[in-house]
Every structure is written in C-alpha cells, then in structure tokens.
C-alpha cells in the first residue's frame, strides 16, 4: 500500500481533490436550498407532509439511477461532472429540508415567544433566535449528509467523474487491491475529518450550550 502510494501519489492526490469538491459543493448547494423550503414547511403546516414525502422519495432513489436520469432532465452529457453534483445536491436537499423543518419546529417555545413580545420582526426572529437555537439539530443533519455524500461520490466513477472512485474501478479492472484499499481508507478519513470539522464548527457557533458544564 505504501509503495503504491509512493508510485502513484500524483493521481491519488488529484482524485482526492476531485472527491473533496464533488462531495462538499453539493452539501453547500443542498443546504442553501433546504433552508427556505424547510422554513416554508414550518410556516405553512399543510405543506409539511408533502415536502417530507417528496424528500423521502428522492432519498430512496439509488444513486446510480439518479445520476443516470439527470442527463435526460437537464440535457447534460452522460459523463458530465454536473450530473454527480446535481444528484448529490438533490440528496442533501432531500435530507436537510426535513431536518430544517423539524429543527425549526423544535425551537418554538418560550424563546420565540419572548422574541415576538420584544418586538422582533419575523425575519429577525428567524435569523436572530430560531436558526441559532436550531443549530445543533441542523448540524446533526449536515453531518449525516456530508458523510453520506463523501461515500456516494465514488459511484460517479461509473459515469466518468468519481473522485476516489476512479481508484476502485481502476483497481478492479487491473485485478489489483491496493488502489481500492487506498481509496476506501482515504474516503473514510475524509469523512471522519469533515465530521470532526463540523462538530468543532458547531461548538464554536453555539457557546451557550456549554455554559452549564463550565459552572
């Protein structure tokens, strides 16, 4: 494994770099889309169930099928990297809309009533009170989506853009396990790293959750 890395590190590095982009950009896109839709599901309760059901349907479509249908819908080429990005963004969106809605519902209570009584306008109440209080639940969803994306990117190797998945198909074609092991280890390490990063970011963003422990 070490000799394999010594001989092939330029390719491995470029696959890793592609993997990072392909997995993290969709998390960002999906999260940005999920925020308004999740918010809408909370404000219009009649939309909650349809939105959650739609997310469930998107989430249950297997990744390769999703990647393969996107060219028919968007008119992209079958091997375009855009297919993977759009597919993973859809997964993230499907997972996070429900998380956003449930997180916002879970913080309704005395704090939001206090904000309302203090004369906070709806938008300020959302960004100043509800979203910060919902951060722990939001981040739990974000962690699941990030880790899932990182493990799914490799499926893209079947349609031309797979990040570390290129090592899997390459190794399989040559009947050679080293690249596959390297790919799996790097992919899991990347997932662990991003997970820890999100935990630390959440800690930094929610100092009030730790006041009890310090006193």
């Amino acid at each position, binding site marked *: 494994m070490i000799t394999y890395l010594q001989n092939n590190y330029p390719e491995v590095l470029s696959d890793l770099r592609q993997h990072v982009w392909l997995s993290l950009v969709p998390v960002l896109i999906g999260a940005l889309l999920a925020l308004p839709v999740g918010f809408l599901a909370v404000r219009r309760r009649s939309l909650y169930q349809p939105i959650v059901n739609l997310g469930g349907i998107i989430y249950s479509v297997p990744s390769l099928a999703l990647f393969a249908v996107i060219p028919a819908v968007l008119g992209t080429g079958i091997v375009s990297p855009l297919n993977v990005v759009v597919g993973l963004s859809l997964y993230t969106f499907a997972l996070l809309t429900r998380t956003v809605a*449930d997180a916002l519902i879970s913080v309704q209570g005395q704090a939001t009533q206090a904000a309302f009584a203090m004369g906070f306008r709806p938008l300020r109440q959302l960004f100043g009170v509800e979203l910060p209080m919902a951060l722990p639940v939001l981040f739990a969803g974000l962690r699941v989506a990030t880790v899932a994306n990182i493990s799914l990117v*490799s499926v893209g190797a079947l349609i031309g853009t797979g990040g570390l998945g290129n090592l899997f198909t390459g190794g399989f074609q040559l009947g050679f396990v080293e690249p596959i092991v390297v*790919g799996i280890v790097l992919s*899991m390490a990347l997932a*662990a790293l991003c997970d820890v990063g999100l935990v630390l970011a959440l800690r930094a963003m929610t100092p009030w959750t730790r006041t009890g422990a310090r006193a």
Partner: protein
Amino acid sequence: MTLTPTPMINYLGYLFDGAHWHLGGDSSIPDRLLQHLAYTLVAVVLSALIALPIGLLIGHTNRGAFLAIGLGNLGRSLPTFGLVLLLVTEFGVYQWPVIVALVVLAVPPILVQTYAGIRSVDRSAVDAAIGMGMRPAQVLFKAELPMAMPLIIGGLRSALLQVTATATIAAYASFGGLGRLLIDGLSRNEYDQIFAGAVMVAVLAICLDYLSAGIERLVVSPGVREPRVRRGLLRRPRASRPATTGTT
C-alpha cells in the same frame, strides 16, 4: 426527407420495447427485476439474522454500546462501491463476495437502530415490567421489543434501500439484477437502456420503501406509533427518523 427522432423517443425506446418484457428472454426486464429482488431480500434477511440478535442483546444489557455506536459511524462512511469492488477483486468474480459486501453494508443500520430502539424505551415501562415479575426474556420480548419496533423497522428500511442501491452498482462487477441495464447501457453507449435501468431501479426502490412502510403499520402497535401529524397539532417530532438520526 429525414426525420430526426425527438430526444424523448430515444430515452424511452428500450423501456417500452415489448421484446424486453418477456419472462426468460436474454435481455428481459422482468428477469432482471426478479433477480434484483432476490439478491436484495437474501442480503437483507441474512443481515437481519446477524444484526437483530446482537442489537437486542446490546440494547437489553447495555454492554458493548461503544461497539454499536462505532459500527454505525464506520458503516455510514464506508464507500459502498469500494467495498463491493474490494471483495470481488480479492475473492474473484462470484456472487458470494457481492452478497457478503451487501450484508456488511446492511448490518450496521439494522444493528444500530435496534440498539437505539431498545435504549429509547422508557425506563419506567421496563421497571414496571420487571415489577410485574417478568423474566429478563419476557421483559425484552414483551415490553422492550414492541416499544422499540418503530426504530427497528426504520433500520430495516434503510438497510433495504442501501442494499437495493448497492446491488445496482454491483452490476459493474458482473453481478446480475437491474444494474445490468445501466452498466451494459453505459458500456455500449445506449442511453435508452441506461434510462430504462434507472427508471426501473428507482421505481423498485420507491415501491420497496412504500411496501415496508405498510409493513411497519401492521407490525407496530398503535400505542407506540409516531403521533400522526395533524393540522396545526404538530408537536416536537420524536427522534425516530431512520435516515437522519443515530449520530453521536
């Protein structure tokens, strides 16, 4: 005069060609579907046989919880495609390495959700069961298990989806099932075949998910069912969402 076919007809050609719908044909869609279903069910049943007893035991005794949590985190970050190709490359292009890979992927969600389900049961209900003189096995099967059912079924459902999806990409390693349409279509550059495979796989996954939701309704006691969402009565949702919970 030449007519260029519209793109839509190109997409649907394979799927709506009657020749692909006979049972037992060389490129039969129903055959692929049945194959896919058989592999998926075998893998999920095997995983359940392994994961359910261990999950119940860990949850009931609360020993080895670190095992359940660690396994859950590990299982989620393991790239499924890599695992399938690793086992096939190591042991040869047979069916059993793929089935083993599918089982390895399906065990963590079932085990973790079973453990979480048993641990989520209200302690006072368990104490009441003990106080009524139930034996440990009765406490587990008559009190803890029924109340843990929603989470356990949730684990089985996510395992089912995971296996359906992974069996699709396993076609790359000469595995049968609906994935063949996608992989063969990709290698021959026939988009209508790819599209047919994608549609069939997606429909299968959605149907399986709905079917298991129906089974969940039959199996879960009405008393512990998640409170239904009614107009304006939406309370704090309980932490029993299979796909999103379970992180620590």
